[in-house]
């Protein structure tokens, strides 16, 4: 083995003095440079969750439906019919900032591998995006590049992207967020796990060849950005969606039989992470010889091979004697596949290279023995932020202008520019397309539909992390209810700043507390997720941005609730508690007044539970012609969104509301637990009875029809916007800003 690594080298690789000492204790000797590199990657924040692990333990993770909770490559829940939905969300923030197209694309590639390693065929994708304002050319390049990269990868894979979200705030200018979500379907009794048992079983490396790309990716994602990091930047990983498509087909074909013991994708920290995790989960060891790893470049040393983050690779643990099956299937798909070692019984990860032992480390030392901190958390002095009420604001005079401005604002304009670049129809199962509250895919040959949504509001969380966390969960569940679906499981991606700062840790723990309260109230278990810390560039931290992905089922997908107005003459109802006129941290404040302050609305979890039950019952009974949840932009935004259907058809509407004081709160307030429904006149009575039974207040707020969006307040018309003009503003503004 090579010489011992020095403390200086350890510090330079991101480890602390204490961690370096601990490694020495675990090994009984100092590590050599290759081993140091392996520890540095595996003990990085990104791989070890050292600042977050204790706090994540607070999430509720159980329900009768949960098959696989946090800990595996992805979570899995039972959706009936003998099927499981396997899903997870993951961040690719730092790579996207370095190279938006490839960074975002490889984020999609990575999350898809997490799904098909579980034996599930991916059937849907979503993504949650945050960028700085589009007024800056750099942000436009990041935004358009990331969207094109996501499109390129998902479209090539033949998996529809059916939902997601995009927001713009100053704080993301130097630190954009790209969180990618994927969902797959597997037979509930054939979920693959990444556990290497059975010593002697061969270990294979399959897929792409290993190159020098992305070495240090894990540690990069665990450090704040500065100019020095920019200079150290690793070779960017280039995605190869074609190769991944073949890899997916080959793996899924192989998984039909029983030749495999375990499968683990290679993501962060590449071979190091996949071998040590697969072994330590199974209580085993692994011995590999790097000379057998197919290499794309010449002269790679052990350190480089062990830490390469070349994309589109998988580690397989094969049942002894079944190697021929692996060869046959990978040959069919023209993919490299080679045995590189075997499972051992000694618990060690032993790495040979060119006839020498290049590293020998207990697998558990890399994984389970990684440090875990309880970092100090401290509430910042500005908290709580003062409430904002209309009395603090100049009163708008021209409401036509206000509604038009908001309909075309970065916050509220249609995301068509984005989702039309994503193939959202491939697989011919998409029954609710993007542009609604949640996307829905059906399962051919069954009545079952799967609904999904991805939500988070960094502005809310920045002003009140606990409320923001709860509201993200509440909104996601509300979005599912608006299509008639029942939430069955959730995943989450926690995008935060530098955890070494006590106020960031406070944001983190508060957000988790809020999320937990809402998850418990709504009875939704967390089955996995991802934490992205160090979203800090040049000393500026992003808004704390938890993103929640919730998956729901529709037992009868034909009973889904439509997301757009269905027929002229239908009546409009606002369901949910009165007094939802909160304006703190709202879209209106931001887009009209240029302010992001104030306190977000107080979550009302009981009301959310009742609203959800009401919407599902209304959907099942066929009483709702359409539904939209109220969120950013309140009632006015929900109305605008409901006008323009994805097939190009459109219907006008007239909102009629009563308002004693200022109008802003009534039209644009973001109080939770509310939805806008359209209803056939003949069903109105039954709907009212249902609302009464479920304890949900219901107010008549107008009707569908006409060639304009009209708003009448206390009987007098204050808004009349013709549909052609409004359609252009709503549907085309984001594209115009992006391509300016």
């Amino acid at each position, binding site marked *: 083995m090579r010489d011992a690594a020095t403390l200086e080298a350890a510090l330079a690789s991101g480890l602390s003095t204490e961690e370096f000492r601990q490694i020495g204790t675990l090994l009984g000797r100092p590590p050599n440079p290759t081993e140091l590199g392996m520890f540095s990657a595996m003990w990085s924040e990104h791989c070890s969750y050292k600042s977050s692990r204790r706090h994540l333990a607070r999430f509720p993770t159980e329900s009768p439906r949960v098959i696989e909770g946090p800990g595996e490559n992805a979570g899995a829940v039972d959706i009936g019919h003998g099927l499981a939905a396997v899903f997870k969300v993951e961040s690719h923030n730092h790579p996207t900032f370095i190279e938006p197209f490839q960074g975002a694309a490889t984020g999609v590639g990575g999350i898809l591998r997490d799904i098909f390693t579980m034996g599930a065929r991916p059937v849907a994708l979503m993504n949650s995006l945050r960028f700085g304002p589009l007024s800056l050319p750099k942000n436009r390049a990041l935004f358009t590049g990331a969207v094109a990269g996501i499109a390129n990868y998902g479209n090539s894979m*033949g998996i529809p992207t059916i939902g997601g979200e995009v927001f713009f705030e100053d704080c993301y200018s130097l630190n954009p967020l790209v969180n990618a979500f994927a969902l797959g379907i597997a037979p509930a009794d054939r979920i693959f796990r990444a556990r290497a048992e059975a010593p002697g079983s061969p270990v294979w490396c399959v897929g792409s060849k290993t190159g020098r790309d992305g070495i240090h990716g894990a540690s990069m994602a665990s450090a704040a950005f500065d100019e020095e990091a920019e200079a150290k930047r690793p070779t960017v990983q280039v995605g190869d969606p074609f190769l991944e498509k073949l890899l997916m087909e080959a793996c899924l074909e192989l998984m039909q039989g029983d030749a495999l013991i375990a499968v683990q994708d290679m993501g962060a920290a590449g071979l190091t992470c996949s071998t040590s995790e697969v072994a330590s989960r199974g209580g085993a060891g692994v011995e590999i010889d790097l000379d057998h790893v197919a290499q794309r470049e010449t002269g790679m040393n052990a350190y480089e091979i062990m830490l390469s983050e070349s994309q589109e690779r998988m580690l397989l643990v094969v049942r002894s004697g079944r190697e021929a099956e692996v060869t046959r299937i990978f040959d069919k798909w023209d993919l490299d596949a080679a045995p590189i070692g075997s499972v051992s019984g000694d618990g060690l990860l032993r790495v040979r290279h060119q006839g020498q032992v290049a590293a020998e480390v207990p697998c558990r030392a890399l994984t389970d023995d990684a440090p875990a901190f309880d970092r100090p958390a401290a509430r910042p002095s500005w908290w709580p932020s003062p409430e904002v009420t209309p009395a603090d604001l100049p009163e708008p005079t021209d409401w036509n202008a206000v509604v038009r401005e908001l309909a075309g604002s970065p916050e509220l304009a249609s995301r068509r520019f984005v989702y039309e670049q994503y193939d959202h129809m491939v697989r011919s199962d998409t029954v609710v397309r993007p542009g609604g509250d949640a996307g829905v895919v059906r399962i051919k040959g069954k009545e079952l539909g799967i609904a999904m949504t991805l939500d988070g509001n960094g502005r809310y969380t920045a002003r009140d992390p606990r409320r923001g966390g709860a509201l993200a969960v509440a909104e996601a569940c509300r979005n599912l209810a608006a299509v008639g679906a029942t939430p069955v499981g959730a995943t989450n991606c926690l995008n935060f700043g530098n955890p070494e700062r006590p106020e960031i840790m406070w944001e983190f723990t508060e957000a988790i507390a809020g999320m937990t309260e809402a998850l418990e109230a709504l009875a939704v278990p967390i089955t996995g997720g991802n934490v992205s810390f160090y979203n800090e560039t040049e000393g500026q931290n992003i808004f704390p941005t938890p993103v929640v992905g919730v998956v729901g089922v529709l037992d009868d997908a034909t009973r889904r609730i439509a997301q757009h107005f269905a027929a002229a003459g239908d009546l409009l109802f606002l369901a949910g508690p009165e007094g939802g006129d909160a304006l703190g941290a709202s879209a209106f404040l931001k887009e009209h007044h240029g302010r992001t302050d104030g306190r977000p609305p107080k979550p009302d979890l009981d009301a959310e539970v009742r609203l959800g039950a009401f919407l599902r019952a209304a959907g099942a009974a066929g009483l709702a012609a359409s539904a939209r949840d109220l969120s950013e932009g309140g009632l006015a935004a929900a109305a605008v969104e409901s006008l323009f259907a994805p097939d190009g058809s459109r219907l006008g509407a007239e909102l009629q509301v009563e308002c004693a004081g200022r109008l802003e709160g009534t039209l644009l307030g973001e109080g939770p637990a509310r939805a806008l429904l359209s209803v056939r006149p003949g069903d109105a009575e039954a709907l009212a009875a249902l609302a009464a039974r479920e304890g949900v207040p219901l107010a008549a707020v107008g009707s569908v029809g006409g060639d304009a969006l009209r708003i009448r307040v206390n009987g007098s018309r204050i808004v009349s916007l013709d549909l052609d003009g409004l359609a252009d503003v709503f549907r085309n503004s984001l594209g115009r800003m992006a391509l300016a």
Partner: protein
Amino acid sequence: MARFAVLVFPGTNCEGDVLHAIEAVTGQPAALVWHKEGSLDGFDAAVVPGGFAHGDYLRAGGLARFSPVMEPLIEMAESGRAVVGICNGFQILQEAGLLPGAMLRNVSLSYVCRDVRLRVEANSSPLTCGLAPGTTLRMPVGHAEGNFRADDDVLEALEADEQVIFRYCDDGGEASDAANPNGSRNNIAGVRNARGNVAALMPHPDRAYEEALGGVDGCRLFESLHRFTES
């Protein structure tokens, strides 16, 4: 009874949709055929479905012609049986020389997935033989390279010979610029060969064959294809 072959290249991703649509619409059997097959014996028609054959690397459809299955596919076309392409399948048939023209990148330079409206221009093809010219249909597109190009003289000949079978049009049936999702010359969305047995289009009838998907106009194309194989 007609037997349909649905070809699968590495990177193809709409084979399941096409298979399902054919079976659901025509009630006839269809089978997936892997690109390494050297024969299409026993099939009455072949469909080349959408996706990203060979990743669409180099050019969309550009690398598929090296597959063994292309030889029997060309024979099938020469024998007068129906050969049909959808989206990437269109590009593959062009690259193989079975259909005229070539696809450039969309003028927007972006992938585009949305519903478009099509006008049937001629019923002299396996995809349109059951449809009256002038009929309009709605179905999704999904492509980045669907910008149909051919030299002026080629284009003139195609038009004169009624080889253009579909054009992008607006709700009123007009082939306007606004209705053109990719910049195709003459709003061309689908063409056939001179003999009238090979045809393709960029939009996806395989994504519009059930109400649940938001439209059923795609059924008419599969019904036509079925009728063509019976004649």
